[in-house]
């Protein structure tokens, strides 16, 4: 028991010491606050992307282009949140970005790209949902 009390006292002393050290220098300071919390995704379930392509004679054709990406598997915990979807090359260069707000019902996000993206170049997709 004595020893436990001693340990607690040691802790309090440490606390006081830390504070006391600053004061003894007669130093003023701006406020500083810090904290840590976890930033979580709005869902843990898997999203799945599929692509709608159309033939275009004009640039970026002539050829097939991607104008719509449908992302399924949306959970209700991700409703009504801002999103950004990026189609990219294998090297990570952006071919096009689309932004919007996830729906407030259902399980799919229909993402429209304007201008459309050359289908031949699409090798990667990125999705960000925030809020």
């Amino acid at each position: 028991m004595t020893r436990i009390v001693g340990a607690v006292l040691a802790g309090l002393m440490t606390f006081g010491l830390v504070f006391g050290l600053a004061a003894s220098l007669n130093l003023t300071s701006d406020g500083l606050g810090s904290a840590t919390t976890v930033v979580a995704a709005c869902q843990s379930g898997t999203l799945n992307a599929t692509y709608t392509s159309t033939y275009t004679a004009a640039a970026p054709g002539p050829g097939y282009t991607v104008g719509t990406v449908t992302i399924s598997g949306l959970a209700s915990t991700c409703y009504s949140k801002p999103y950004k979807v990026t189609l990219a090359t294998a090297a990570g260069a952006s071919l096009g970005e689309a932004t919007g707000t996830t729906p407030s019902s259902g399980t799919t996000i229909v993402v429209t790209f304007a201008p459309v993206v050359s289908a031949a170049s699409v090798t990667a997709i990125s999705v960000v949902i925030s809020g």
Partner: protein
Amino acid sequence: MKHLRQVVLALLVMATGAAIGAAASVNVTSTTLGVATATVPRCTASGLSVLQNLSAGTVTSVTVGVLPAACGGAILQVTVNNGVTSASGSAAVPGGGGSVTVALGSTPAVTAVEQTDLVLVGP
């Protein structure tokens, strides 16, 4: 033994105390943020045979062959462009792969050079 336990307990309390004492803590919460990147896979990387089927000097359909089973169930979209006009069609790839003949919505004339674009969507 008892000593060791109590020393550890003391250290723990000290560490906590130091942590609390070192900075003025601020309450913070956060909204969610989720990020993901995925590769867009191809159902095949092998050579596909693409043959134009003709009738009276026009392209009426396109037969795409040597489709592997991994492309089974995909939707094959085809467009033939002869430099003047283009014609498109689509068909489902059989479950085991093989070949698919896609009828075109119109029949462009055969010319010296034609571009045929195709895309397999899915599975």
